[in-house]
């Protein structure tokens, strides 16, 4: 029997193991040593590694990001935690102008082995400023890497890979994924860039689900299977650099690509994926493309609006159905999913 951990426990274990292995790994951010220990992802670490290695910070995201860069230049491997991705905007200058560029602009002299953990909020009225994904903005910038694991297995493997990476990595956690449980090996292992995963096979269309949308795509796949459509589902895992080949291979087979992004589509990872596949398969006959993402608006707080804001298994399945069968009226039955049921605020 494989051991099961939650996504949260997987993050905590990866951090613990890496801190145990490498004294250069330090962990800080608002609330990391707090009684709520960042949803449990830092549980036990302050006690185990002490206040020099695990520490809370003032409300100073900009400076603390520069601090992480400076530590990384000195050979440490800092992990900087933002309980909301939205706050990373305060650090945009340091991330984009310093962290992303330093290895290149200093001619390979100063690299930046740092990890920025950013959490995407959803549900329970997280609202405009506590729900953003923003990873597309950072994936845009050469020099930064971006990873968005979707299973506890990858949560651990990607975090270990990110910590060991000699470059700045934005590690994207979706709060709704925090609840997931799954098999996680006890040993240390890396899930490195270049490892997009086919999470379900199928011949009728390719669905790429990013971050939490991976889960929603797998659910949509069930609905589609019920009406005889076989969707292939791919989890890109790393968003920068992107493993394009796995997707191109699949689309060459299925002739249909539906990317479901967990971010706004415009100038997003999802749209870039569509563009890159369209370019790679340029001139091929009759391939269908579609990209879903957040609706092009600020995330509203009210539940009725919030529900309409996000792609969901039903809207994904309907979109896929239309691509395969040309029928835009079909909808799967309504269902509620466990984490949306069990999840209660405030957070």
């Amino acid at each position, binding site marked *: 029997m494989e051991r099961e951990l939650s996504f949260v426990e997987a993050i905590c274990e990866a951090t613990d193991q890496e801190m145990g292995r490498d004294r250069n790994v330090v962990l800080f951010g608002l609330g990391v040593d707090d009684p709520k220990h960042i949803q449990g992802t830092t549980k036990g670490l302050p006690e185990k590694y002490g206040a020099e290695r695990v520490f809370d910070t*003032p*409300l100073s995201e900009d400076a603390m990001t520069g601090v992480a860069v400076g530590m990384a230049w000195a050979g440490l491997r800092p992990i900087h935690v933002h309980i909301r991705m939205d706050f990373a905007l305060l650090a945009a200058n340091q991330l984009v102008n310093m962290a992303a560029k330093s290895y290149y602009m200093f001619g390979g002299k100063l690299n930046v082995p740092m990890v920025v953990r950013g959490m995407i909020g959803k549900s329970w*009225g997280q609202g405009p400023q*506590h729900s953003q994904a923003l990873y597309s903005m950072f994936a845009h910038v050469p020099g930064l890497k971006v990873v968005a694991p979707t299973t506890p297995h990858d949560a651990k493997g990607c975090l270990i890979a990110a910590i060991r990476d000699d470059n700045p990595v934005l590690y994207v956690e979706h709060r709704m994924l925090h609840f997931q449980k799954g098999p996680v090996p006890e040993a240390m292992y890396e899930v490195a860039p270049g490892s997009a995963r086919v999470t379900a096979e199928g011949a009728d269309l390719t669905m790429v689900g990013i971050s939490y949308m991976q889960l929603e795509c797998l659910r949509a796949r069930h609905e589609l299977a019920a009406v005889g459509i076989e969707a292939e589902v791919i989890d890109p895992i790393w968003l920068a650099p992107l493993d394009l080949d796995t997707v191109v291979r699949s689309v060459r087979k299925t002739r249909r690509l539906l990317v479901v992004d967990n971010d706004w589509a415009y100038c997003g990872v999802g749209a870039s994926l569509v563009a890159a596949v369209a370019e790679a398969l340029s001139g091929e006959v009759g391939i269908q493309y579609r990209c879903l993402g957040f*609706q092009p608006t600020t995330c509203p707080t009210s539940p009725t609006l919030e529900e309409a804001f996000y792609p969901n298994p039903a809207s994904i399945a309907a979109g896929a159905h239309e691509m395969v069968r040309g029928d835009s009226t079909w909808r799967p039955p309504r269902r509620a999913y466990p984490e949306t049921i069990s999840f209660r*605020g405030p957070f």
Partner: protein
Amino acid sequence: MPPTSSRESRGAGLPARDPARTGPPDPETCYRLLLLIRTVEEEIARVYPSDVIKSPVHLSIGQEAVAVAVCMALRLEDVVFGTYRGHAAYLAKGGDLDRMIAELYGKNTGCAGGKGGSMHLVDVEHGVMGTSAVVATTIPEALGMAMAFQYRREPRVVVSFFGDGATEEGVFFETLNVAALRKAPLIFLCENNSYAIHTHLHQRQAQSDICRKAEAMGVPAFRFESDDVETVYARIAGAAARLRADPFAGPCFFEAPTCRWREHVGPGEDFHLGYRTADDVRRCQANDALKKAAGRLTEIRRAVIEREVLGAVARAFERAAAAPFPEAGTLLDDVYKEV
């Protein structure tokens, strides 16, 4: 500005009394507002477990006095900027109660049509500017509005409320400097409850005299010893009068001690977390401004006000519960303002 010691310059430029507005605050209004805020928030806490409010709430139970004292010294045309912990300032400034509760319920009768929730309250007609969930983000907005009033020579005062945690963000310092440079008609008001979430001020600020920081930026500063309504009211009324009289009188900074009785976010208490004790809070509760305000009224007047407030609050929750949710079809309304 001549260099003066931090102590000496505290309060410099802030007249102690404004002949027009420094009488004691009207005790009935004061009690009504304190009671209104307390009742609303206790009702929020009561209904919260039933999930009718599907959004994070940051209660200011225990912190009402500062908002009430400050807002009583303001006029309708004056403007306040608050934070995600903004219920008190919203109500104290006269924000519409029904629309606030409807907003928390995510209903389309809410002050932001359900799109904002508890952290993004707004009531422009009553001078409550939109509140924000990202700490310190409305501080420069307050300055921008003060500069607009100054530019138009409107005798209006802007108050920027924020917590002690906000005074660690870079934008706080930037804004104070610009406010002082532009001599903007702006009152900075730091509600110092000693904590940012669960971390004490002393663990976050190496030099934790916040007034000294304000003065170093060129903004005269004054620290209240307590959140006593009369004292706070008198000072703020004086400062506001000065700013109304001269739009180039320049900003001032006040720090008021206060105490959050409940958990950082959500309806409960949080003594089990261990970052502070129940006794810490009990000491504050002994000085409850609401109780003191009640003591200043006759039993009869108190009863009248209580009936009135409790009725209004009950109605607001009922109306909010009964109001419709926004239609999914309105999701894309108001992304852009187009003529």
